[in-house]
């Protein structure tokens, strides 16, 4: 349990996760008033990471449920192990004589058999899926429901009982309440709008791309090998790219990959050639790559120096960016 909002921040930083105060506040509240957190934001801003570091910071087990289209409760909650049930039936075939032995007619033997039915719908044949595991766990856990927007709407509705009351209902067994309520983190890329009912049951947290300072901090924390000047140049360039109208803006994840790549390459300075060579790490679409190259070339030509090779304070002005943009449009 976190003692205060500052405590949340400190413990997240200890896990190498930089958070702003809003995030810390929401996490703190989620623990205190026992509500799930719904994290929304573009891909690669650390939504999933949040759940992971929370688990680490709290010393809890992380249970992960990756959502996809067609996900249903047999994958998310529980399933009966039909094969095993069948096998046991086969193996226990001889036993049947002793169970229904004294019975005289068909009716009473069926009654006797159905008296034994519970055996087959008991824990022995129950396959736990992530949600059930989180509910039945003796130690509190962190349950990550990743990319809930990918699941169908029925699945959302199915989650409601669990989210609101921390319990699940299995028809054959009954309702199971969480003994140690898990901290639930749902993430969404907003590929579709989630239902009001789901949102109402959660605390909402929007994570966006961080400001340059925060991003710099993250780079230093995660990839300490990278030289400060280089990191600064990278972050400036990334911020500049995000301001562009790209199909897929580079995320924090990509910044970190890039930093890693530059460390591997032993780069000390961010030259234009280096940027072009490693562009594929941060840019994932051809059209975007073309744009960025054109932009780098323009910056190079105009300034006569490497666009982003040096230190802080060296970034592109916005009017420039806009001029570029309209030029592109006219060409298209």
């Amino acid at each position: 349990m976190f003692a205060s909002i500052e405590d949340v921040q400190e413990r997240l930083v200890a896990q190498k996760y930089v958070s702003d105060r809003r995030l810390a506040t929401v996490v703190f509240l989620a623990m205190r008033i026992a509500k799930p957190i719904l994290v929304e934001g573009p891909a690669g801003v650390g939504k999933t990471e949040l759940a992971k570091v929370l688990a680490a910071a709290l010393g809890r087990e992380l249970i992960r449920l990756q959502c996809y289209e067609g996900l249903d409760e047999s994958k998310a909650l529980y399933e009966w192990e039909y094969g095993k049930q069948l096998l046991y039936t086969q193996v226990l075939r001889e036993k049947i004589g002793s169970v229904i032995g004294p019975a005289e007619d068909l009716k009473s033997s069926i009654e006797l058999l159905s008296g034994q039915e519970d055996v087959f719908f008991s824990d022995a044949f129950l396959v736990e899926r992530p949600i059930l595991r989180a509910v039945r766990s003796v130690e509190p856990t962190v349950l990550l429901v990743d990319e809930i927007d990918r699941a169908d709407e029925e699945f959302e509705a199915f989650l409601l009982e669990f989210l609101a009351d921390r319990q699940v209902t299995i028809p054959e067994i009954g309702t199971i309440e969480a003994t140690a309520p898990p901290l639930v983190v749902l993430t969404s890329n907003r590929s579709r709008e989630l239902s009001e009912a789901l949102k109402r049951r959660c605390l909402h947290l929007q994570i966006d791309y961080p400001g340059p300072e925060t991003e710099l901090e993250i780079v230093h924390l995660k990839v300490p090998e990278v030289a400060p000047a280089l990191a600064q140049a990278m972050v400036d360039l990334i911020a500049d790219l995000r301001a562009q109208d790209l199909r897929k803006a580079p995320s924090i994840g990509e910044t970190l990959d890039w930093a890693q790549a530059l460390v591997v390459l032993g780069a000390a300075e961010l030259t234009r050639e280096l940027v072009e060579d490693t562009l594929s790490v941060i840019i994932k679409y051809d059209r975007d790559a073309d744009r960025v190259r054109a932009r780098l070339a323009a910056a190079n030509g105009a300034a006569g120096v490497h666009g982003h090779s040096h230190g802080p304070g060296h970034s592109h002005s916005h009017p420039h960016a806009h001029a570029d943009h309209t030029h592109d449009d006219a060409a298209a």
Partner: protein
Amino acid sequence: MERVVGDFVGILRRHQVRVSPAEGIDALKALTHVGLAERPVVRDTLRATLVKNADDAETFDRLFDVYFGLGEPPPEPTARMRPHTHDDDHAGTPNELRFEEELEREALDDQGSHGHDKEPSVDLRKVLDEDQIAPSSDIHGDPERLRLSVFGRQLMLSKKQDALEAALERMTHQLRVRRARSFSPGAIAPETGATELPIDLAAADLDELADALVDLEVDPELISALTAQADDILAGLPELIAAMLERQRRLSEAGGTPDLGVTDRHLRKLLDVSPAEQRELERALRRLGRELHGARSRRMRPDRTGRISVSRTLRRSLGHEGIPFTPVLRRHRESRPRLVVLCDVSLSTRNLARFWLQLVYGMQGLFSKVRTFVFVSDLAEVTGLFEEQPLGGAVASIFGGGLIDVDANSDFGRAAEAFRLEYLQAVTRRTTVVVLGDGRNNGRPANAAALEEIARHARRVVWMTPEPRWSWTLGGCDMKAYAPLCDRVEVVRTPEELSGVAESLALETVGRREK
């Protein structure tokens, strides 16, 4: 606190942010855990509990600033409050401190932990059980926290309006002296919803106010405590009231123009769509997206909401002696319908065309093939433009006149001919053709034959016109000629109507009845 949060929720709702009562209760619960001492924390708390759509976040931020912005470093010169401006000044006079403490104790009472109970909202209190309240009481115990922030003080004042009013009542005679200052009862009690506030109050008005205040049951101790420090308070009171008045004004006027983000604002300027329309559009699209799965085809595919496929189920169950443990369900695969849109972007239909283009843009993912054309007198395909560019850019380049001359006189006859010659192969038996235009050719030939040929190839032709039927016979309108060739003619004048038609159209296209 309940009252402040409740009031604030009401204001959010008035600005079209949907907040459920459950969320309001969550907000209260959450506030008991974080306390009121720090403004950013309160902001984040309320935001996380009350606002669930990223789009509403900006509305929230703006309203929060206005609603709780009473004591900020003055946004307007009128909102200046001498004794309250700086947090750090709080060492202040002992009198002042005592006053705060008093208010604070009242605040705790209000939360229901102890003391007098005079607020009606009992059920809220049931929710807040004792140990949830407990953290807030250490505000009381902790001498450091006694120096209440400006923000906390605002909360108190907003909440303790009764107290404020009571203090006012006792001080009416003093206030009269100062009545040249601007304030009014409307400002003191925001619930009355007064918007226009008279600057000079007649003495009679003040008497009336005093009479009304006498009726309020207020804790006499508090009043005496307050009056004891009357001078201190009174010095700041008119400014405080002026600030509240200002706040009220901003809250009530803010409704018309919610501030959108930079990109949105950019888009809005281009699209000239009111936020209400924007919302309507988004709602319509979401609804469509849910309803519209596509037309039925003969092919089946596995689907867990479908019907049992006997043969497949039997095959799968061979492994367990033919006992069908796992039924296989199948449903008709749905194929997406095709749509060709012809959109008049001339001056007369421009406003609707903008909305329509947005709608089409949003629908592109729902149909397997949407081809969009715009015309005035020339015709141009904009499908590619929509795919490449974000909506704002695409619409801007259409209306910017880069593709076709948008200032020409509209001539559907000519555009239809151009379409027939170049793009007729785009129209198949599965295609629905939608024309948005007023059918005014400004004297040039109607060329109904071209439309007729298009209609023959298409599954359906739907025409949407902004003009009511009676005006079709007036000057230069060829709707009379076109209407019989269309399967359906709809008169749409507002975006709401348009999205309604689009919805029913989409549903019919995929072979479902309207609900």
